[in-house]
């Protein structure tokens, strides 16, 4: 436990030293970025027909949206596999 604490303390000092070095260079902080509104490739609304697709699934089958007519489909997009959820 003591060893862990000393490592933490050392790391903390290192960070402080870096912060001091950074502020000592007299650089003004970058101007705050003006928020650019996100632009998306389409803007679907409730009531629109869901765009048709036929995409390969992890189960080895091709999944066509129109094959699911008569059922509710949840299509949850996510950015990247193996990236924490």
């Amino acid at each position, binding site marked *: 436990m003591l060893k862990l604490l000393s490592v933490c303390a050392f790391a903390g000092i290192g960070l402080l030293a870096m912060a001091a070095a950074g502020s000592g260079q007299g650089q003004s902080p970058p101007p705050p970025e003006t928020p650019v509104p996100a632009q998306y490739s389409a803007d679907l609304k409730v009531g629109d027909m869901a765009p048709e*697709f036929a995409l390969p699934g*992890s189960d080895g089958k091709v*999944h066509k949206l129109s094959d699911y007519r008569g059922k509710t489909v949840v299509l949850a997009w996510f950015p990247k596999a193996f990236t924490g959820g």
Partner: protein
Amino acid sequence: MASVDDAETNKRFAAEHGGGFPILSDPDKTAAKAYGVIRTDRPPEQQFATRFTFYIGADGKILDIDKGPRGTGVSVKSAGEDTIKKLEALGVKKK
């Protein structure tokens, strides 16, 4: 679920983390673009799918779209339970 990863990657991902539903792959981003989950203000190499969830009814029409509290994507932590709550709110019967 769907992403712009290739099929082989999502197959491995589903095998490790899958939840009993297929993970779809859209590497050329055609469907992702049609669903409006791609940020066009970003360069192509940063154009991943935003965490938007679409609820599509039996007639093929969009019942609801969840874009998260700030409109930038749903919460990773509560996505599962949020989806169940939404389906209940939409009156979708359980199997």
